[in-house]
């Protein structure tokens, strides 16, 4: 098993290599001089020269790519010219906010969708099942940003129940350690702040979770129905096991693999969705930073953020594959572990 996992992890290297190559080629294909893209409009001649040197723009294409790659490996893409700060320091300061939002949304979506999917499968063909299907298709058809605006309109503007955006109310101070506000508040013993932090989180988390609930519940339903048709289920029925025992000991454990798969597939939705949700709710994460950097064409920062998201995406996919190895003995066996 260890060998199979190691092999999967090693497979990431060539993919990352190719991904950076694509980004580099896109950067070079962009109209205009690459040096002009990499400096602000009002840059001096000396600054342009420095950038040429730094990105190796006066050398052959292949060498340029390697200096780009080397800079990436050193986590050094220079300074963002909008914020004047180091690109990767800036990114690191924004990542926790995004992680907090995305994990909570995935958690909320799974907690709602998986039981819903199981219920729909066990009550296949009934009104409950139909309602889950309708909800699922409505979920994937609703634009995230529209839902966000409507929720703000209802819960903030009309009912005055929840804040319309931001991460902390104005003037509230919180010592940052992990950058995850809920965790930081607990570490600092400020349990009084938990409610405030949670109220800021509810609307963005709900908005982001909504688009995922539909798909997760539908695939869970399909997975359960597939497993229910297996012969070992027939055997356990014949053996006289109770319905509850069959569901708990045979049906659910065997449905975990396909359910893990969708959680992995939903990762893409989670990333693209979180960018939009962050913008709608002025959530100070990586998505908002990307949005702002694109609006002012801060190319070093855009490049850094795209690399960060893509690396995270690829790595989490590996983690999901490793989870397969652990939860599914069949995959383990077929890999000759």
């Amino acid at each position, binding site marked *: 098993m260890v060998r199979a996992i190691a092999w999967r992890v090693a497979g990431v290297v060539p*993919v990352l290599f190719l991904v950076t190559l694509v980004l580099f080629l896109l950067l070079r294909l962009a109209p205009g001089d690459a040096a002009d893209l990499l400096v602000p409009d009002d840059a001096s001649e000396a600054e342009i020269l420095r950038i040429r040197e730094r990105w190796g723009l006066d050398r052959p294409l292949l060498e340029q790519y390697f200096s780009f790659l080397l800079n990436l490996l050193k986590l050094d893409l220079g300074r963002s010219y909008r914020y004047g700060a180091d690109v990767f320091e800036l990114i690191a300061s924004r990542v926790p906010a995004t992680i907090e939002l995305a994990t909570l949304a995935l958690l909320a979506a799974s907690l709602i969708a998986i039981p819903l999917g199981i219920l729909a499968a066990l009550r296949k063909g009934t009104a409950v099942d139909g309602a889950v299907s309708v909800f699922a298709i409505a979920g994937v058809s609703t*634009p995230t940003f*529209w839902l966000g605006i*409507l929720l703000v309109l209802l819960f903030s503007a009309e009912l005055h129940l929840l804040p319309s955006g931001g991460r902390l109310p104005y003037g509230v101070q919180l010592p940052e350690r992990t950058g995850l506000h809920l965790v930081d508040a607990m570490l600092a013993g400020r349990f009084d702040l938990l409610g405030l932090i949670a109220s800021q989180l509810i609307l963005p988390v709900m908005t982001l979770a909504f688009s995922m609930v539909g798909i997760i519940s539908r695939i869970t339903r399909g997975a359960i129905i597939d497993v229910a048709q297996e012969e070992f289920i027939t055997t356990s029925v014949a053996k006289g096991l109770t319905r509850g025992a069959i569901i708990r000991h045979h049906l659910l454990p065997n449905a975990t693999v396909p359910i893990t798969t969708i959680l992995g597939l939903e990762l893409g939705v989670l990333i693209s969705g979180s960018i939009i949700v962050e913008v709608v709710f002025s959530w100070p994460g990586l998505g908002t930073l990307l949005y702002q950097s*694109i609006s002012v064409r801060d190319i070093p920062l855009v490049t850094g953020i795209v690399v960060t*998201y893509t690396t995270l995406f690829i790595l989490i996919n590996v983690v999901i594959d490793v989870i397969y190895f652990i939860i599914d003995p069949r995959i383990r066996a077929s890999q000759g572990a």
Partner: protein
Amino acid sequence: MRKSDFLNAKFIIGASCLLLILTLAIFGNVITGHDPQEQDLMSSLQPPGFSNGGYYLGTDHLGRDILARMASGARVSIVIATAIVLISGVFGVLYGALSGYWGGFRDIVLQKIVETFWAFPPILLALAILAFFGQSLANIIIALAIQRWIPYCRIARAQALVLRNREFVAASQIMGAGTGWVVTRHILPNLLSAAIVIATFSMAGAILAEASLSFLGLGVPPEIPTWGGMLAEGRSYVVGAWWIAVFPGLGIFFTVLGLNLLGDWLRDLLDPKAALNLR
């Protein structure tokens, strides 16, 4: 409820949604009589109704007619999404069919490229392209097509891998048929129903993605009215003027819902897995 009833319900609701949007796109500007760009600051933020100077769906903060802007938004969305689906579909099918038919080293290289494009999270590569190349209609189409060809490529390659070893393909090769002939006469016809199903879902995704990018102000240039752009511009005025946010959102919702329902219906009807005979 019998299964066929449910299928019909999918078709009827899906087709009605799309019909509604098509009517809006074609006749919207005839119904209102206002120009989508025409500003009338005297009647800004008018609520929807029949007694406010012909602004049936109300006006935005600049006094522009929401209905007229909805109609042009519908046309822009449909045109862009159709272009994306056509380009990605044709490219993906040909790429996959050739890759599978050739096999060997060329297949490995071509599939490495597929894997690379697939490694980017959705939308992100599109955002990078728009950031590097700037905003224009052509760029948004390229940006959104750049990952959408992969599903077509997958099915086309799988189909080609199976068919290239069949006797009728060998017979055709013996009679002197070249790659072009085999791909267009033997492989492509077998893919049609699967490609149509993918295209329907992909169109729904393309409309959502275009709307999201336009909402972020990174998609269609702002002077062209789009549903996403209307939501972005009207965002600060929605408190007290709900119609600014509700109507464009409904436009996107009905289009995407209609396409998703039709896609589901087509998938059941054409049963692409059976049609592909991948075994």
